[in-house]
Each structure stands twice: as C-alpha cells, then as structure tokens.
C-alpha cells in the first residue's frame, strides 16, 4: 500500500473547516448514565418482493411474502434492464446501536447498491425521539445484485429503475429496526482486531496480486506508487469489531467486518437477488459465534473487486469457477475465517469505551459531471436528489450547450450536498465517507486516525456520490467531452485521448476529494 501527499487544497481547507461546521458531541442526551457500554442489534428483511416473485420468495425462504416492490425488479450495478428472476439469499438492513460515554449512535448496513442522503434524511426524521439516537449512519454494501435504489439501471438509460414504494418500505424498515435495537440495549463489551487479506487469492490472473481483491483501474502515476504491482493498489486490511455480553461467557451480540471490495462476484449475468459474498461472510461468522454479523464495505473505489481474482475451492483443490455462487461462498468463507482467526486472539473487550463522533453537513461539492446533470434533468436519478445554488435548492432544468447540442437537457443547480463523519469507539475509529473511496485516500484517513489502534472505512456512508480519487489524478477529458461523447462523435472533442472509464464517468468531478477530505480530515483530527 502506497501513500500519497495530502492535496494542497485539502490542507488549506482543514483549518477553516475545523472551526466551522464540526459538531463534536461529547455528552449525548441518551448516554448511559454510568458510562457502561450498552448494545442493541436488529436485522430487518429488505428483500424486494414483487407480485411476480412472491411465490419464488415463499418457496425459498418460507415466510409469507408481502409485496413491497412492483414488477419488474431492475437489478442495479451493471447494465440496464437486468431483471430479477429469483433469489439466492435475502437482503438485509442490519443495525447496531451503541450507547455509552459520549452518546448513542446507530450504524445500519443495507444490502443495497447505494442510498442517497435525501432518503437517509427521511429515515432520520422518521426516528422516534424516544430512540435517543444522536448519530445515525446508514451504509450501503454496494452489492450489485439487488434493486435499483439510485435510478441508473432501469429498462434503458432514459428510464429510472427506482420503485419509490420500495424506498418507502426500506425507510420504514430501517427506522423501525433502529428503534427496536435502541429499545433492547444490554450491557456489553467491545473488542477490535485488524488483519489482512494477504494470500486469499491465487494470483493467477494478470490483475490479481493475491490479496483477495483486485484493482481494476490503474490511475496515471500509480505505477510510481506501487511499482511492484504495476500500479495496482488495494487496501488489504480486514478490520473487525465484535460486541459481546458484559459478563462471562461473553456471548457474542454482533460481529462487524470491514473490507474494501465490491460485492459483485456474481457478475453481470446473474439475475438472482443476492447480497453476494458478504452473505457467506455473515453466514460463517454467525455459525461460529451466533449473534448478528454485519458486513461493511470499505474503500472499494476505483474498481476494487473480486471479478479478476481466483480463490481455491477446498472441495475440489481447483480455483472456484468465477461468477458462480460457489465462488461467492468460497471467497466469503475465506474472508470470514481470516476475521475469526484475528478476533479469536483478543481478550474480552472494553466494557466502557468512550464514544465520540463528529459530522459535517452539508459538504458542498460543485457538480461538474454533465452526465449526472442529464440524468437528474430527465428524472432518472432519484428525484429527491436536489441540486443547490448558493445553498438554496435549485431544481431548474435548461439546455445550456451550444448548437447542435442544445437539445440535451441539464439540471442547472450548481452544487451537490453530501455529508461526512467520524466515529470513535474506544480503540476503534471509523471514517464515514459518502462514496466509493480510492484506497490511496483511505490510507490517508487511516493515518489521520492513527490515535486509534484499529481503523475502519465506512464507504457509501449516508450517501452514494460515486468515485472519490486523488484530485491530482483526475482526468477531466470525459466530462469536458460530454456533448461529443453523448452525440456519438468523441473524435471531435478537442481533448484527446478521452478516458470515460466508469471511474471518471460516475464521478461528480475534480472537486470531490478536496471537498470530502477537506471536511473529513479535521473531524478525524478532532477525534484523535
């Protein structure tokens, strides 16, 4: 893992931002009176069930199926018009509520491709004050085999894939789940472990360096940072947090595992709803410990994923066939075993860790991406994802390009608002980032959290704004050439060559990292 220097713009902003919008809470209203840690958990089934798949759901899982989605269910994450045909496993909202010295926080992991901040704000507003939640984190694992909750994967590029009724169902499920967890707190301890993924894959593929995750996009200059791997940079850390009962036998309440890799091992041909390899991670952990297991995806940006790795199937002694549930099972089980080995070496955890957190909202990022402006304008992206101009919601749509491109609609608001956060639980520290973070930047965040022994990256935390990569590696060609690319004449763009890799096309723009790091680094500094 290689380091990079902190962007100058980010450094310049640190001092300003640190004094501005940081909400560092040290005495939450619902904190445990005696400072002891209390923990509650819950899990809520958020599997999309359409009338057409209700029978399949019942056959697979037993409980009566209540439709929460219309037909068809468009699967998110790869191309358009991929329709669900059945189920492999259920999708979940899994929540932990931690109450202790410093406040009460809730962390919810959704088996979804992403969840926009406007929906998170609805969930927060729906929470009963009786739950006493001081800070709610809603994370998405970014799995690629579930319903479209963002809008990009409908029947075609011009039609949204969102069923808003399903979003209402998820919002209500999460709010109820968190309240349920908050109502069932019990005395607890927390312990942490950190290990790595070295050796979890076979290294047979040109893109597989043996870390159980491959870097699918090498940015300009990465060769200098990681010459041994040809510029491929991954984050091999597996960070684990385990919550147990306070007294002997320290019954496990929850085990959280954090790793930076896209849950997409089934690839784009699969049409069965699944949470992908995290399902098998959780299954193995729950088999080992009981309690509830939670998967939290970390710095998976810039195409960290399992599509180009090979893992050894112990049953056959051969690489598990790629894009199969057997691959997902072997891979997930391996990750779980690595986590188990690490956490089993730890003694019973701390019974009264200090909890502190800090957030900044809104983080204002100029929206440079004309593709996003196009999809907002035509109602493909979640229509609640409002743009802002001068801090005021701005829903205007216009046709700003010169002829002949003046038929392409664009949302005209200047900025996109998101949020960042930091959370400290004793020896564990969490950076909550709103999108798909490049591991190079994740390394900086971990360095900023060095005061904690164990560091976690919560990717897609409270939002999904696309990829975040170092500003000095930003390639603006795809955005600059938007009308030429969209018009089918990229050759005519004055900027050449054009790199419209998904890393650049699904990206707000060059200001993402300066804005997010500029807001987050001071928060992490405050917490350490």
């Amino acid at each position: 893992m290689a380091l990079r220097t902190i962007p100058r713009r980010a450094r310049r902003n640190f001092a300003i931002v640190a004094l501005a919008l940081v909400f560092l809470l040290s005495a939450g209203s619902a904190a445990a009176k005696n400072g002891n840690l209390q923990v509650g958990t819950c899990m809520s089934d958020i599997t999309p069930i359409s009338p057409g798949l209700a029978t399949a759901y019942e056959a697979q899982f037993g409980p009566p199926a209540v439709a929460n989605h219309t037909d068809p269910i468009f699967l998110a994450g790869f191309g358009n018009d991929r329709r669900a045909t059945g189920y492999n496993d259920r999708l979940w909202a899994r929540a932990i509520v931690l109450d202790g010295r410093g406040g009460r926080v809730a962390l919810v992991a959704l088996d979804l491709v992403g969840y926009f901040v406007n929906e998170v704000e609805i969930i927060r507003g729906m929470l009963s004050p009786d739950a006493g939640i001081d800070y709610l984190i809603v994370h998405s694992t970014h799995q690629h085999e579930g319903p479209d909750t963002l809008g990009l994967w409908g029947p075609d590029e011009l039609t949204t894939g969102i069923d808003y009724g399903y979003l209402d169902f998820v919002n209500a499920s999460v709010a109820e789940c968190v309240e349920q967890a908050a109502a069932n707190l019990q005395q607890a301890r927390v312990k942490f472990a950190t290990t790595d993924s070295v050796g979890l894959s076979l290294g047979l593929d040109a893109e597989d360096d043996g870390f159980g995750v491959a870097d699918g996009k090498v940015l300009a200059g990465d060769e200098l940072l990681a010459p041994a791997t040809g510029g491929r940079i991954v984050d091999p850390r597996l960070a684990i947090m385990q919550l147990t009962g306070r007294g002997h036998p320290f019954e496990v309440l929850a085990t959280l595992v954090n790793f930076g890799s896209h849950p997409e091992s089934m690839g784009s041909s699969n049409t069965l709803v699944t949470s992908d390899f995290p399902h098998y991670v959780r299954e193995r952990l729950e088999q080992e410990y009981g309690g509830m297991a939670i998967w939290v995806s970390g710095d998976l940006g810039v195409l960290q994923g399992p599509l180009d790795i090979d893992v050894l199937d112990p049953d056959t002694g051969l690489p598990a066939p790629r894009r199969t549930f057997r691959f997902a099972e072997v891979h997930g089980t391996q990750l779980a075993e690595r986590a188990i080995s690490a956490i089993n070496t730890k003694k019973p955890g701390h019974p009264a860790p200090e909890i502190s957190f800090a957030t900044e909202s809104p983080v204002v990022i100029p929206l440079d991406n004309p593709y996003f402006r196009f999809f907002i304008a035509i109602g493909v992206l979640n229509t609640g994802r409002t743009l802002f101009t001068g801090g005021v919601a701005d829903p205007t749509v216009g046709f700003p390009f010169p002829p002949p491109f003046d038929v392409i609609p664009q949302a005209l608001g200047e900025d996109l608002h998101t949020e960042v956060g930091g959370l400290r639980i004793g020896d564990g520290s969490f950076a909550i980032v709103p999108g798909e973070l490049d591991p190079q930047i994740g390394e900086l965040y971990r360095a900023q959290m060095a005061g904690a022994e164990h560091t976690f990256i919560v990717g897609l935390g409270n939002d999904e704004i696309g990829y975040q990569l170092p500003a000095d590696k930003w390639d603006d060609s795809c955005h600059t050439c938007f009308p030429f690319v969209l018009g089918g004449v990229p050759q005519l763009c004055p900027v050449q060559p054009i790199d419209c890799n998904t890393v650049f096309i699904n990206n707000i723009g060059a200001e993402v990292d300066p804005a997010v790091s500029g807001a987050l680094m001071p928060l992490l500094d405050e917490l350490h």
Partner: protein
Amino acid sequence: MRHVWMVACIALSLTAARAPAHVVYGSPTLYQLVVDSDLVVRARILDRATTGGAEEIQNRPLVGAKVLAVYKGSHDSTEIRFAQHGHGVPTYEPGDEALLFLRRIERVRELDQLAVTGETAWVSLQEHDSAYTMTPAAKSTFDAAVRAYVAAAATPEPSARLASIRAVTIAQLRSPEPRLANSALRDLVLMGAALVTADNAPALIEISDDPTLGIGIRLGVLTVLEQLGMVDGPPRWAHLLQNTPAPDRLAVVRAAAAHPSAPVTVELVKLVEGDDAELAAAAAVSLGVPGNEAAIAPLVHAVEHGDDRLQMAAIRGLGRIATKSAQAALEQISQNHPEPAIRRRATGEVARLTKSSP
C-alpha cells in the same frame, strides 16, 4: 444550421484517426460498437481457456471461437482467440453463437502484457449487456442489422453516410428484436439533432403513435420529437396517459414526471383518484414536480383517503413539490393524521426539507 454543423462533425469524425477507447453510460449501441471496433465477426464459441505460455505472465481467461462471418476488418484464420476485459464481462459457453466486437490489444492498457507475449491480438470489451449471443431464429435479423450499420459507417461521402445511418436507425426502431430497437432509440436520442429532419419527422411520429411497438420506443421517440420542437408535447402526453392500456400505462405515468405541464397534471390527478392502486401511487410520485402547486390539494386528499402505498407516495410527491404550501401540508399531516405510520413518514419528509434531524 444545426444539421449542417452536425453533418460537418460526423463528416470530420469519419475521416479522423481512430477514436480512443471510450465508454458511454450503460451499454454502447450497436452502431457505436461497430464504429469503435477493429474487427467485427460472428463466431461460434469453442472453449474458455487460460493463458500460460510464458512464465512471466500470469494466467488470464481467454476465449476461443470459430469465425463464421467477418463484417468489419480482416482476420486470416478460421479461428480466433480473444481476451475479455471489463467490469462485468459475459460468460460464453461452448457452442454459443455470438457477435464479437474486438479491438487490437494494444489499445487496452491493462492488458498490454498479453500483447507483448503474443498470447492474443484481440480484446473484447463487451459487458454482459452488450453481449450479442444469438438464437437461430434471431440470427438473420442481427446479421442484417450489423451489415447495415457496417455499410452505413463505411459509406465514403459524408452526407450520404449520415443519410445511411439515419435510414438504418429509423428502420431499426421498428425491429422485431427489442435489443435492436432499443439500440436504435439510444442512437436517436444521442444524435437526435442530426438524425431527425423535417423529412423523416412524419415517420417518427408514426412510430410514436404505433400501439404495436414497445412503449419504451414510443415514449423515447416522443421525447426526442418534443425536445426538437417537432410536436406539441403536452397534449400527446395527456393522450397517452388517457389511452395507453395496462401494463404499458405504468411506464407512461412514470415517464410523465419528466414532462410536466398542466394537461399532464390533470391526467395524473385523475389517476391518483382512480381505482388502480399501482397507477395511483406512481401518479402521485410523478405529480411531485418542484413548484407544482396544482397537485398539492389532490395529494393531500390522497393522504387522507388513499391506501397505504398511495399515502406514502403522496407524501413523497408533496415533499418533492417543496413549496411552503407543500411543507405546511406535510406538517399538518405529521401532526394530525390518524395513522402513526403516516405521521411518521410525513415527519421524515419534513425533516428532509428542513434538515433538522440527527
């Protein structure tokens, strides 16, 4: 003037050096695949193997295939071996017959090591949704479409080339193969100004009005015509909302959200007040256009009298309207509605509008 400019653009593009690799959102169209490939073939998949000839090079899946037809470029063997590269490449099975759009491997930075070793000269960047594995029944249709696009793209004279592309695109909009029709629609949307002329507007209007065609094609063509000012959009959207039968009507309702107008609001309100619960909920969401004050009263009525799904959708619509009146209505609902779940949902929407939650 606009058309002249685009003609000039496309003319230039066809004489320029080969385009660098690029990706547009979602799957590329068939036309884009043809233009962007060095070699286009139809082939029968033989096997999936791995590289392994050189110790320095780690293995990588390669696909072997028997070439059945060459549409573009040249290949002097009956067999071909290519690497797959991408975010989610398709899994071909032996015996599959597929259209392959191949690039020379030197154009793909991540795989240049394979080029050095001579393992293969070709790469397919086709993702799952741009894979064309053909059934015997569809083979002739796809074959004809690819040949038409290749011929159009190869037409020497620029204006004649554009005319050819225009003709192929409009013909493919009526293709019995949905993938070909959808691909043509995307070309029409992306190059609308160049492809739609006064001469062919009537043919496109016919497509938009043709109930035998897929609703997605019809709505897409209508959107292009409306954007180009070639039809009066609002009455056409209102007509579609009134007359499109199920299940296509749901698609019309959802699409109408991006085409707000007074006539559209009137029709959506009728649907909100109608008997079809799914349509009513979708219409309530589509009424949620910023500033659409005319929809507030019907949506409040829906919250008071609708079923659960409609109530939630109406709250979402009110939140999206986002005027002071809409916010006041939501606050009233959050305080006074008899159903706790509805009060709770409205409270969430108010919180989103005011951002006052944890």
